[in-house]
């Protein structure tokens, strides 16, 4: 095989592997044979092709069901609206009145999350205490009694029910009952997060060392005493850490709840979006990202303190 001078490999570098393998110097014909050799071919190409076809066939109904036609976004009218909206993003709205509104709504978002988590704690703590099998007196001597067992399972079922309904659905329902405003947001977060916190609290309590608790119970301590002196000292850091983490999540979800009318930054963002006020949306998105970042670092710092 003839190559022009500039394409010929230098003695110290091979054109095919970039190193000094020496193939080029020995025999270019040998090299071409190696390239075409069956070892170079993908040995699994049939399988790969089959998988590709199968996934294409599976993908088709997905595209149909989701009405996925991205080119629809590229027609001139849609592009015009989008461009107009995006052009409004710069500069973000920074007049004093609007900033004051944003600051008030941001605080409300935080307040809804905090009040909601407080409510959730009030709900979760008793439920978790009831659901924890480690605090069972009847199971000290053999199997747990029927009534305690049924009570524990009922508490668990209640927590599952609270947790399964998304907070947005709770909020939608409460907005119908108590009207627009932060009350429905607080209630929605309280109920859903009550279920979540209760379940995880019960799991944490079950996961800690049972020995001190059982000793206290066996020596005549009450369930609350056994919890306070046996379980709580072990589990407190983890319980606190999880609560803080959930508070952080609640801030994120309280923004989302605003979109159905539960107050806070979300509600404001929703109305600005409906008016296609790009500059206001831009400001609020920036504030929201900052808020999430702040909550994130505050929660990381607080949880770091516990360690």
């Amino acid at each position: 095989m003839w190559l022009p001078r500039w394409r010929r490999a230098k003695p110290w570098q091979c054109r095919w592997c970039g190193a000094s393998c020496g193939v080029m110097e020995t025999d270019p014909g040998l090299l071409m044979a190696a390239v075409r050799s069956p070892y170079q071919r993908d040995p699994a190409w049939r399988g790969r092709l089959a998988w590709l076809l199968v996934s294409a066939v599976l993908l088709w109904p997905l595209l149909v069901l989701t009405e996925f036609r991205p080119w629809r976004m590229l027609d001139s009218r849609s592009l015009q609206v989008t461009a107009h909206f995006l052009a409004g993003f710069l500069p973000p709205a920074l007049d004093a009145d609007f900033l004051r509104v944003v600051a008030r709504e941001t605080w409300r978002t935080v307040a809804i999350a905090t009040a909601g988590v407080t409510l959730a704690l009030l709900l979760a703590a008793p439920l978790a205490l009831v659901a924890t099998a480690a605090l069972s007196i009847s199971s000290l001597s053999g199997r747990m009694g029927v009534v305690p067992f049924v009570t524990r399972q009922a508490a668990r079922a209640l927590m599952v029910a609270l947790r399964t309904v998304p907070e947005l659905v709770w909020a939608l329902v409460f907005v119908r009952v108590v009207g627009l405003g932060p009350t429905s947001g607080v209630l929605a977060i309280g109920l859903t997060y009550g279920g979540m916190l209760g379940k995880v609290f019960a799991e944490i309590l079950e996961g800690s060392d049972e020995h001190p608790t059982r000793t206290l119970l066996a020596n005549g301590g009450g369930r609350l005493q056994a919890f306070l002196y046996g379980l709580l000292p072990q589990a407190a850091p983890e319980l606190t850490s999880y609560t803080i983490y959930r508070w952080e999540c609640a801030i994120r979800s309280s923004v989302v709840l605003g979109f159905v009318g539960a107050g806070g930054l979300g509600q404001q963002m929703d109305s600005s979006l409906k008016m296609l006020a790009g500059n206001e949306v831009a400001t609020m998105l920036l504030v929201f990202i900052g808020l999430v970042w702040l909550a994130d670092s505050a929660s990381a710092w607080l949880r770091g303190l516990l360690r």
Partner: protein
Amino acid sequence: MSAGPPAFERLPSGLITPRVRAGSVLLAAIALVVASFWSLDLQWSALWSRDSLAAMARFAGEFFPPDTSALFVSKVVQATAETLAMSALGTLVAALFGLLLALPAARTHGGALWRVPTRLLLNALRAVPELVWASLMLITAGLGPMAGTLALALHTTGVLGRLFAEAIENAPPAPAFALRAQGARPAQVLLYATLPQVAPQLLSYTLYRWENNIRAASILGVVGAGGLGQLLSYHLGLFQMGRTATVLLAMLALVLAVDTTSYFARRAMTR
């Protein structure tokens, strides 16, 4: 000559002992809670008044019986399929773009010139929740499931991109090094050393996000982005409570089915 304890052991404890710190954090938390309840004009009295309790009971009573006419049930089934399709397609698109963005975002490939802006982009995508993306996408993509799919894809790209980048960074470096030492190009190193090693992890992250996205997709519709949520907010808005109840039941069934499937799948895989 007695050697006492080294001097540094006897240094007086600083002003901020752990106890002081814990106390101040606790005080701050209590202040935050009090300020929250104080500043939100919560209508507890309205909530617990006899009228509103009666209204709530009436409201809950209207949910029964759920609408089980064949026509409506088939509509709900259709919406459920739409929800599943939205979540699946959104996750798939996100996995593709997440992988594309994870490569420059990972410390192993490329320099800071690409890494820093990519990471910023991923963080921004991740910080905005799906529902906010959905209401932004409504402007571009119009009402319907495509906006929801795009919203899921955007948020999930941020999440998966970051997780993928971490997985790629944490892959054992030896195989990649071996290929590089043989003179393989960066693309070859990626395809034949890094990706095969992290593929199972990428797949499990993707499945985990899919599970989350099914839950998210079922509620995205309340802003008009398709799926069960759109049906829910539509019938709730018209106060057709029987139909709302059917949609709610479908939603709960979907969430419970996803939870149980993932529980058993996890158990089967870890066994």
